[in-house]
């Protein structure tokens, strides 16, 4: 994976020192809270319900063992020995002391990490396909371009005070695992008919109060123009995006209000003026960065791994895990392994310091010291030899990271909600725990098949509820928590938004309602249909009718 050179390292250290001085000035009273707040936010530090929360960037989800070990250490020493993996592939620590921040930032900088731009109205951490660089279905490695975007967007002098936050997602595969159409800018690398590689550029996607699917504003952007084209989009947005109303300030509203065609013209016109300037990416620069992502030294292995059959036969737990957790690797004899951080009955995405340290060790043993954070709040080992799978599984069992629920109903996406978040209207984690408990039975989960349940504790939609096959939105109704259900959302290449189905439920009611919806689906599905496919065929109608009419 990418490693900092002296410049990247110096940059992060300078920034850490700058923030340390700001903390000192705050504590001495030179800065008031009003003055300090934007500065701490620009460094990822929020004040949440119980304490300060630090959001640490994991650039496009890539994490080394050394970094994971450091996160475990920081969480133990400066927090309460756990962290939370977010839907933006970052890690959050929930109990940070302001006075520890200078020290924490230095610790993080020592492993090339920081919280720069993890908050604020700027370009946030770039997210990407969690299998980037290793997926069998990948056209081109998106990490190279993510890295260009990361550098270009780091303290961008022109775009650090945008109308609102700005999120990028990038994939290099036709199978979208990065939800590119749910981002301010979504990029998909592909090869055109002439065999050239370029991007499809989607703009104006996003969830929150007014959800939109991103619009395709350019169907082929040669890779060398990536930065100039993005600069053109951002410049149009920075000048014209609404600043009068926080809820209308995202680029999706500008695109919507301007009209797709007119917006495209604005961007293309701006781009014409800058396209061949200093932002173009000549092949020699790309080659420099590509070299930093050189694949690890794979062994020459047979793809066929006979030992697995007997290990599966003798170990039902291993067998279940094998059924769910693997994804196809481009290299023979290797596989991608999904590691669930969403155990039955526990908060999705929470991981203890001990687990972080174990995972760091295991990645060194089994995956060239590299892993990924996924937008489903789980982890991925990118490069595991198939013949090591049984041994890896045994080691994961020991640290309670072997839940075999990848893509199944208990593998929910869930924001922190009212248990932690200052903006929340309702709790979301207890609901996730109850749902995974209700569907704990592995056979039943397999019978139900692929389904995504996403939940958020408020309209900001950090839990991506609109794009869940079943989405759950928590609201506050007269000081009690109420949950609204929506069906039919998808975050993949066939992206769609769910709509509210009907009256909401209380916490237990929503679990019962989901069980009913699943029963309805099992009853109505045709051979091999997923929940989403059945819903797409039939619409809300039968689900709504039977859910709300059934005697409860």
């Amino acid at each position, binding site marked *: 994976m990418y490693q900092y*050179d002296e*410049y*990247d390292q*110096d*940059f992060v250290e*300078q*920034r850490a020192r*700058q923030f340390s001085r*700001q903390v000192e000035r705050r504590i001495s009273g030179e*800065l008031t809270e009003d*003055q300090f707040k*934007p*500065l701490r936010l620009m460094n990822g530090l929020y004040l949440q319900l119980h304490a300060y929360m630090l959001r640490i960037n994991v650039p496009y989800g890539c994490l080394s063992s050394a970094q994971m070990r450091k996160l475990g250490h920081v969480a133990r020493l400066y927090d309460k020995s756990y962290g939370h993996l977010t839907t933006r592939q970052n890690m959050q620590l929930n109990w940070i002391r302001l006075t520890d921040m200078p020290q924490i930032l230095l610790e993080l900088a020592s492993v090339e990490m920081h919280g720069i731009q993890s908050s604020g*109205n700027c370009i946030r951490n770039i997210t990407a396909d969690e299998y980037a660089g290793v997926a069998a279905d990948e056209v081109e490695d998106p990490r190279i371009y993510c890295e260009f975007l990361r*550098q*270009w967007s*780091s*303290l*961008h*002098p*022109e*775009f*650090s*005070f*945008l109308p609102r936050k700005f999120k990028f997602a990038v994939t290099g595969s036709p199978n979208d695992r990065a939800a590119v159409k749910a981002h301010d800018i979504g990029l998909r690398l592909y090869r055109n008919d002439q065999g050239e590689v370029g991007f499809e550029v989607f703009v104006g996607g996003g969830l929150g109060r007014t959800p939109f699917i991103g619009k395709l504003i350019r169907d082929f952007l040669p890779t060398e123009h990536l930065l100039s084209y993005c600069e053109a989009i951002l*410049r149009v947005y*920075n*000048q014209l995006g609404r*600043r009068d109303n926080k809820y209308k300030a995202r680029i999706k509203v500008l695109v919507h209000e301007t009209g797709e065609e007119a917006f495209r013209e604005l961007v293309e016109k701006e781009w014409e*003026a800058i396209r061949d*300037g*200093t*932002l173009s990416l000549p092949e020699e*620069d790309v080659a*420099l960065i590509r070299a930093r992502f050189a694949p690890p030294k794979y062994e020459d292995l047979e793809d066929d791994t006979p030992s697995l059959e007997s290990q599966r036969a003798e170990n039902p737990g291993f067998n279940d895990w094998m059924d769910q957790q693997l994804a196809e690797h481009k290299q023979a004899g290797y596989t991608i392994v999904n590691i669930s951080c969403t155990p039955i009955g526990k908060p999705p995405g929470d991981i203890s310091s001990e687990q972080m340290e174990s995972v760091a060790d295991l990645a060194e043993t089994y995956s060239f010291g590299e892993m990924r954070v996924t937008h489903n709040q789980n982890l991925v080992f990118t490069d595991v030899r198939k013949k090591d799978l049984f041994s890896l599984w045994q080691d994961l069992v020991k640290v309670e990271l072997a839940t075999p629920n990848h893509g199944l109903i208990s593998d929910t996406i869930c924001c922190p909600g009212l248990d932690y978040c200052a903006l929340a209207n309702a709790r979301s984690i207890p609901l996730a725990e109850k749902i995974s408990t209700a569907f704990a039975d592995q056979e039943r989960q397999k019978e139900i098949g692929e389904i995504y349940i996403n939940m958020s504790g408020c309209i900001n939609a950090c839990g991506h509820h609109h794009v869940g096959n079943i989405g759950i939105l928590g609201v506050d109704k007269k000081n009690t928590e109420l949950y609204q259900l929506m069906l039919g959302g998808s975050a993949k290449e066939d992206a769609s938004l769910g709509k509210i189905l009907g009256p909401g439920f209380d916490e237990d009611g929503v679990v019962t309602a989901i069980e009913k919806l699943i029963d309805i689906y099992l009853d109505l599905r045709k051979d091999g249909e997923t929940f989403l496919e059945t819903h797409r065929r039939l619409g809300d109608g039968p689900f709504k009718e039977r859910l709300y009419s059934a005697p409860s």
Partner: protein
Amino acid sequence: MARLRKDFTVPLLKNGKITEDAFTRVTGETDFPSTGALIVDLTSWQEHRSELLGRADPIGIELAAGESPSEIADDLGNLSLVALDFPAFSDGRAFSSARLLRERYHFKGEVRAVGDVLLEQLHFMSRVGFDSFVLDSEDPVQEWLIAQDDLNLWYQPTEDGRITVRQKRRG
């Protein structure tokens, strides 16, 4: 952390040094002094263009945050200064305006930041082409001078002449 005041009194931080301000700001007025460097708003400029051009002394225009430099592009040759307003420090439109002035329209005069600006924004501002800042008279000038050197590594090419990380890597 300072706020830049709109009445251009003292002190003026220009090209990294505290400098005397030669300009007087006259906005919303029609009675222009016959001598002395002036800054007028866009409307005054549009209404009294020929009168203002007839004066011998330097002239500058102040653009509000929503006003695009393209509106004065043809006049830039006659201007010594463009002031860009920040109605709030979080309103970053003027960052784009400054770059357009420098990079699109090749304006060589002074580009001045006015309004609500954080000291922490100073390094962003110098990169997009601002070269002068009006400090509040109570500001700790020393801190503004220090803040100029908070960071000295840049990933983004602008036309401010600073070497970017990409250029350093190429050697």
